[in-house]
């Protein structure tokens, strides 16, 4: 199945509409009936309502602009997306962080966050505040334009933790998910990161890889996959990295479209529901993370953000009104896509949760 070059939004595709996605998710099921509502499933395990348990991460989505249009992207990011965070909104994030010392980590995501013209300005200030900065770097951006070639040095200067997607240690499966030629460029970018000291044994410059399955199946055994990735990347390309994060694909946006188009939607949802793990449910990332959209709106996670499910009404809705004490009292907004974070070993932006 070829990867479309345009975002769903540019195609005016029905899955560009979050309300339509939610409608589809609500009515997922098998011949035996719809799947149980996620909230009801949590109630069975005495986890409802789900509330934060010590928020320490502010995840900031600095925009949907990206140099890639990956098949599984829940953001529907791409070169045609122009929604990016302004410097004024970034300043509001800095102000909120200054008021909230409990938020020790700032996780920058996108699109390709580096494409935001104020990205470096933002990282410099976050770093000066002493916060641990994570950048979700798609790797190919480092080679996309000469102005990005020094990104590894910039990351190093600010002790940024680099988290990069590499769905497989072969070109065929990587390119099938992320686009032609992505594997080769990703390998070059990883070698550049290694060269400045990232991912090396004993180095504090952390380089973590993200494994998302390239298809309609779940990830299994993070430790075992990590060992296999380390073996294959070292022997094939002399690449080293620290940890592999296994992340389950959630049925949102382009991945939802893929599931429907490939005829795998019902069976995939059934896999997620059947694999519900209450231990993983107790450790979901929305309990320690708050997500900020490109326009400053607040969400429980980046997936809710893309489905336009803002944090519970009655709590601060925008970064300018950020109040961690109030937000820590909120009830987390749930929907059927949440099954993706509670299946099997669990899934979060930091990998398995059990």
């Amino acid at each position, binding site marked *: 199945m070829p990867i479309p070059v345009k975002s769903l939004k540019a195609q005016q595709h029905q899955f560009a509409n979050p309300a339509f996605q939610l409608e589809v998710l609500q009515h997922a099921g098998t011949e035996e009936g719809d799947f149980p509502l996620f909230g009801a499933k949590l109630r069975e395990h005495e986890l409802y309502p789900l509330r934060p348990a010590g928020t320490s991460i502010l995840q900031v989505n600095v925009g949907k602009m990206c140099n890639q249009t990956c098949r599984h992207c829940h953001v529907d990011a791409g070169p045609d997306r122009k929604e990016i965070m302004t410097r004024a909104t970034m300043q509001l994030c800095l102000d909120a962080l200054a008021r909230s010392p409990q938020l020790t980590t700032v996780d920058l995501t996108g699109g390709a966050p580096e494409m935001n013209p104020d990205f470096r300005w933002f990282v410099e200030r976050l770093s000066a505040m002493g916060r641990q900065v994570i950048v979700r770097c798609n790797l190919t951006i480092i080679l996309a334009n000469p102005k990005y070639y020094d990104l590894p040095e910039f990351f190093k200067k600010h002790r940024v933790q680099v988290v990069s997607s590499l769905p*497989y240690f072969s070109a065929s*499966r990587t390119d099938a998910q992320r686009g032609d030629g992505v594997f080769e460029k990703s390998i070059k970018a990883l070698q550049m990161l290694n060269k400045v000291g990232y991912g090396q044994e004993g180095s504090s410059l952390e380089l973590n890889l993200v*494994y998302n*399955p390239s*298809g309609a*199946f779940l990830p*299994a*055994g993070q430790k*075992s996959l990590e060992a296999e990735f380390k073996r294959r990347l070292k022997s094939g390309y002399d690449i080293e990295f620290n940890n592999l994060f296994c992340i389950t694909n959630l049925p949102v946006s382009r991945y939802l479209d893929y599931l429907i188009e490939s005829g795998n939607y019902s069976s995939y949802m059934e896999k997620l529901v059947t694999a519900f793990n209450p231990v993983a449910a107790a450790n979901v990332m929305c309990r320690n993370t708050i997500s900020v959209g490109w326009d400053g709106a607040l969400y429980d996670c980046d997936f809710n953000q893309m489905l336009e499910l803002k944090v519970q009404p009655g709590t601060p809705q925008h970064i300018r009104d950020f109040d961690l004490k109030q937000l820590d009292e909120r009830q987390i907004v749930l929907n059927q896509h949440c099954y993706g974070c509670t299946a099997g070993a669990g899934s979060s932006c930091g990998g398995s949760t059990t």
Partner: protein
Amino acid sequence: MDNTYYNPADLKKFGNISELQPEMGRKFFDYYGEVFKEGALTEREKALIALAVSHAVQCPYCIDAYTSDCLEKGADENQMMEAVHVAAAIKGGAALVHGVQMMNKIKDLTM
């Protein structure tokens, strides 16, 4: 249901075999679970062996289940197809090695 002996939906009903003989069913599934745990072999290696055996015994349920399992456990397409060739080689070899028996018999029966 389609007019066929095999229905893909039956795979997820595998556990139902315990209904008519709970004790043996329980013992089988406990054993089955134990076999596929990581041990001297990794879970991925066991999944690849299971995929090869699935082809040798030509079980559509097993091929379905262990293709997914191999993908989930991080096996790649080359490894999976090589595993199928191992099964094919053993099946083909098993047929051919009986050629020796045939040759012995020919020797017995002919002048």
